[in-house]
């Protein structure tokens, strides 16, 4: 019967529920929601690809594309840490779900134009 007090108190108070689809989702400034790629800053150094623990990123130097599989990304932010060109950042919104037909990878064309002296990034 020790629960009685809590029950009654909660009964006479507003529910704590966030009405999610009507209300916006809750998150914080530091929330790691999803990865954002800035194609204009990427030098195709492939660090992000190499250091991604779940290998969600594919950088194709030849085709100049940057591909991310949102359904493989673990949002750890390691790529953001290792990217030296500020091309990657984390946003706080979560990535959207997809029906079977809609599922795919996100592909970006790298629009980075090399400055005069291209930097060579050694993998290791």
């Amino acid at each position, binding site marked *: *019967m*020790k*629960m*009685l007090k809590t*029950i*009654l108190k*909660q*009964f006479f*108070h507003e*529910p*704590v*529920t966030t*009405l999610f689809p009507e209300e916006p989702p809750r998150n914080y400034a530091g929330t790691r929601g999803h990865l954002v790629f800035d194609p204009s800053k990427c030098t195709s150094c492939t660090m992000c690809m190499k250091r991604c623990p779940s290998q969600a990123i594919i950088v194709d130097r030849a085709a100049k594309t940057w591909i991310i599989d949102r359904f493989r990304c673990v949002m750890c932010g390691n790529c953001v840490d290792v990217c030296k060109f500020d091309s990657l950042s984390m946003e706080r919104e979560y990535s959207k779900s997809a029906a079977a037909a809609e599922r795919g990878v996100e592909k970006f064309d790298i629009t980075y134009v090399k400055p005069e002296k291209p930097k060579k990034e050694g993998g290791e």
Partner: protein
Amino acid sequence: MNVLLSIIVAIAFVLIAPLLGGLFMGCDRVLTARMQSRVGPPILQPFYDVAKLWHKEKAFNNPVETIFTTAYLVLMVLSGVMFTTGGNILLMVFALALAHTFLILAAYAANAPFSHIGAERELISVMITEPVLILIAAGFYMVSGSFQVIDLFIVDGSGIILLPGIFVALCFVILLRLRKSPYDISTSEHAHQELVKGVTTSFSGRNLAKVEIAHWFELVILVSLAILFFTHLLVFSAIMIIVCFTLLLIIDNVFPRVTWKMTMKSIWLITLFLGVLNLVLLGIFGVLL
């Protein structure tokens, strides 16, 4: 009661009882949610559930489930009809027991461990409630000299004055029969339990819908049985029903599930000490009144 009137009452019961039962369940879920600081489902949720179940694919563990669950529903309706047409309480009690037997048989038929144990537990709960229901019938007989519901309205005074012990025992039975928290041993109405869904584990789709509807009927029957104790205090009985309903909700939310042994012990102790004692005293002093 003449036949025509009986038929009209019966039809009305068949139509109204599930509505009342379903609404009650809906209110229960909404208010429970509020007690848990949640918003909860819409109040019509039980009806949505049943409608959905009705349209699911027909699937079963054993084809006889279909007929047994139908039997459960039909007999539940029948016992309700017996009751509302002023018929015999004892016969109604027997019809209820028969209905539950069919539910139990349906669960047995699947021959799957969880539904089997659910069936055993349901059987235990039938065993637990049966004495109380028979004692209720006996108590009414002692008050009105007949098992007929209709005769209760003829005698002077309400059952509650002469049979308070029996009434308390009935309240516990309602708690058990509604599969409410301390006593939801055979199924799990909300929180999870060791038996998955107990007696209803093997039912799906339409069969489950039938069990749900029958459950609504049962609820209405039990509540009307409680109202019978207030035949001359109908206004008071309305208040009592609301009080009991609230108490029921609170009890549901402030107790964990108990084991079947604890269920059996607690309810039978109450039956023996309140129910039987009540009848014995009535037997001794009834002559004086």
